[in-house]
């Protein structure tokens, strides 16, 4: 078996891939995890969404659409989606702007390669620490007697402490942006780093303004990074419940927190139906985002 670089036409799938036994041997362990712990559980949820509950956590194997009708006709579902989508879009917008600027700075303005890698690492280290801890770390800052309020009171900008800082929609968005900007920085950094700097030089020499360079070179060529980052950010926010629960102080609920409440009272079929609906919404959103990029080629190249 020759170990050569793959010709491009094979990589992009124009030639039918041959059955390859040894490759399958190598991915068997991966499949032994993905099938029982992703594929089957997903199917179980799908099946359970058509079942009835006996009210005590047991499931009666029937076929009913009642769970879906319940979920789809409830006004609460609509409100939950509006809230969750609002958080998702706001978070997406802020993480995109901050993430792009940070990545752009690191790639195009830090000339020393070693320094750029060091600064990049500084940005990524919090990703490997606890999300919950990073979330609660906003409490001493944003609370009623927190640092922000006492500072503002101290310099006389406000008379009364601001209550909207913590346990509010604002706090939820702050916590999301704090946690998820890294998911934008890394893929955008990667796609920006692949841009040939000479292309930019050539454009400038040919008389392009720096705005033109941004519009016609940098942004189009970082599209794949932006799409990947957006996929991460949106799927995490849409699937989250603990940030909403803690940072909103119970003031708002997300699709998943409502799901979890149903699980808590053993209403598995209804919970399953709302989970299936959420999955469909998520798949649609991700498919729309990924239309701009061939994710497979992007990741494996």
């Amino acid at each position: 078996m020759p170990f050569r670089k793959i010709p491009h036409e094979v990589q992009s799938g124009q030639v039918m891939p041959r059955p390859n036994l040894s490759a399958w041997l190598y991915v068997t362990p991966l499949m032994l995890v993905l099938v029982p712990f992703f594929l089957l559980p997903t199917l179980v949820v799908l099946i359970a969404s058509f079942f009835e509950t006996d009210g005590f956590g047991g499931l009666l194997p029937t076929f009913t659409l009642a769970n879906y009708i319940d979920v789809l006709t409830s006004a609460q579902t609509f409100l939950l989606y509006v809230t969750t989508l609002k958080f998702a879009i706001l978070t997406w917008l802020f993480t995109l702007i901050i993430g792009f600027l940070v990545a752009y700075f690191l790639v195009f303005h830090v000339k020393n390669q070693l320094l750029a890698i060091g600064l990049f690492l500084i940005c990524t280290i919090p990703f490997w620490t606890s999300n919950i801890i990073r979330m609660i770390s906003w409490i001493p800052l944003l609370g009623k007697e927190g640092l922000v309020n006492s500072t503002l009171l101290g310099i006389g900008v406000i008379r009364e402490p601001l209550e909207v800082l913590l346990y509010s929609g604002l706090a939820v968005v702050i916590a999301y942006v704090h946690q998820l900007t890294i998911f934008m920085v890394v893929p955008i950094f990667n796609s920006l780093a692949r841009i040939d700097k000479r292309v930019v030089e050539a454009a400038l020499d040919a008389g392009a303004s720096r705005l033109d360079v941004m519009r016609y070179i940098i942004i189009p060529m970082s599209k794949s990074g932006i799409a990947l980052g957006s996929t991460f950010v949106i799927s995490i926010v849409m699937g989250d419940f603990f940030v909403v629960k803690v940072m909103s102080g119970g003031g708002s609920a997300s699709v998943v927190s409502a799901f979890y409440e149903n699980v808590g009272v053993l209403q598995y079929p209804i919970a399953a139906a709302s989970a299936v609906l959420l999955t469909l919404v998520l798949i649609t959103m991700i498919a729309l985002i990924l239309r701009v990029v061939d994710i497979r080629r992007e990741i494996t190249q």
Partner: protein
Amino acid sequence: MTVALGEADMPMTRTRRISAVARGDRRPWTFYALAAVFILYVAALYGPMICIYILSFQDIRGGLVFPMKGHSLHWFVDLFTQVRTGDVKGSFDRSIKLAVLVTVITLVVSLMAGLAFRRRFFGDTVVFYLMIGSLVAPGLVLGLGIGLLFQWIGISPSWYTSALGAQLSWTLPFGVLVMFAVMSRFNSVWEEAARDLGATRWQTIRLVVIPVLAPGLVAVALFGFTLSYDEFARTLQTSGSLNTLPLEIWSMTLNVTSPSLYALGTVTTIVSFIIIGACIGAIIVINKRRGVRATGH
């Protein structure tokens, strides 16, 4: 358009190079603006975390906000001696064991999958999208599915069965994605040479592939350990009756209003930092040794 630009640019003339240098000398105003954005971002990234580390060292009068009330290790002692805060010690122990287990499995499985994905094979797209699906699936939904599946089969969930699998469904896609990045820089000439010299398949992997990929494998281990150690959403419904550390922290977030919550945050972050430091250090040492060897010969 960008392609055309790229081709036109290939023969770089002398004047262009000079103009590039001249331009590089004076920094545009955007440099300073973006540097300010970057500094603010890093400050916002670390600032709040540093606040809770500081606040966890208060004495017994301490509260959840500034100003600091005294200095002591009271809340750290409180964390490991008080029963009302829960079983911190036990859950810490379980989380470390689980993270080690997840790390080892993630390393082996990601390496194998990374080797397989170098060439197209029948059904590779299915495997790829299963992996991406597993990565973006909402953790709580997957947790419910795994819980129900175990209930139907008749196995009671526990941290070393269902929670282990649930965490692997999260760490493995990350591990394999990191392997993709590592593999894209792997030159298979070395592997071919080993084979030409008569090495068996296992010898090739053990003596050539693994040493060459070592820094990347350390990175995969870093992802495996830290993502498992801090995993919450997928573990919540699959860990059975015994808590892991993030679940313990979660219940404290809802109940405990003393700085012992911050103390736990400090302890768990120190563990994370030790792991991150060890991994980054290992990568630097491996690369340095290589540099020495490469110039020595």
